[in-house]
């Protein structure tokens, strides 16, 4: 079983975790869309801390000997999943930035051409 003191620590940690997420959301430092994953993680953590039997049961199913080890393995697994999703978000944004930069450069060329045209027309107007 997970010791009682550890459970209290974990409950406090989960509460701190939620306060932090809420704080970031309030400051608009986090986009709700990308925070959902973290909130889900917090809820799962909360459930597991309140009902540790569930965790013990799952750990048993996977054949992990030690409860604490199981906790770590799940935590690491979850972090890897979050990192993967972050990489995918970064890749998607990379693609969007690329498209934006390319479109911007084409617009920039068009603006330069129009400006040049305006200047020459202006000069012609003065001459005429």
């Amino acid at each position, binding site marked *: 079983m997970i010791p009682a003191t550890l459970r209290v620590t974990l409950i406090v940690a989960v509460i701190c975790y939620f306060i932090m997420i809420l704080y970031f959301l309030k400051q608009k430092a986090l986009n709700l869309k990308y925070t959902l994953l973290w909130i889900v993680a917090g809820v799962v953590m909360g459930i597991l801390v309140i009902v540790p039997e569930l965790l013990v049961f799952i750990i048993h199913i996977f054949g992990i000997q030690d409860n604490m080890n199981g906790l770590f393995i799940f935590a690491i697994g979850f972090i890897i999943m979050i990192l993967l999703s972050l990489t995918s978000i970064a890749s998607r944004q990379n693609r969007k930035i690329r498209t934006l930069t390319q479109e911007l450069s084409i617009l920039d*060329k068009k603006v330069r051409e129009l400006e040049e045209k305006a200047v020459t027309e202006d000069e012609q107007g003065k001459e005429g």
Partner: protein
Amino acid sequence: MGQKEKVLIIIPAFNEADNIVRVVDHMMEQAPQYDYLVVNDGSTDDTLSLCRREKFHYLDLSINMGIGGAVQAGYIYARKNGYDIAVQMDGDGQHDIAYLEEVLEPIRQGEADVTIGSRFLQKEGFQSSVSRRAGINILSFLILLTTGKRIKDVTSGYRAVNRRFIEIYSKDYPMDYPEPEAIVAAIMHLGRVKEIPVQMRAREGGTSSITFKKSIYYMIKVTLAILICRMSYGVRRAKRED
């Protein structure tokens, strides 16, 4: 000559201040009938101010995106401005404009969708170092394995494509080290890829984008990219859109 197709020469340039003026001037002299477009890939040297001073036609990418992003910007420009053929040529003077017609001709005649200027078909001119040739041969063999098509000079950035591939490349062009992957993409789109013998020169100034240190990374990255690109088209090849 009754040939009225619009041809755009795309010249990606990253920190090519040493070469760009000479390359573009030479090109305007040799092939004044074609439009060209320098794509300044967020250079940190004087490439941009030189383009401005010389009143070149250029696109200015505000962030450095690598050769793939620069070339793709050229293809997007070509698509938006209704070009029939796009040619890409390096901005460092390695690619000789004298071979332009040879590279263009199969596309003009409708014999090929993508042509690649290859320095290994006649083994004349600059042949690159032994180790680099070995790397190119490995990638060439990998492309043969995955697509069944033998392309010798898979890293050559001297290419011409027709309207259909301007469209395809403008929507999806590989990044980082795009040349070998772009060949796989072309073949998977049922493009007829043809190699044309050309002579290349050693670089006249600046440094190659692939240093010795990066070559291991290059081989791993490109090998993976080819495999993933091949996989993403599945067992059945992509169909022609039109």
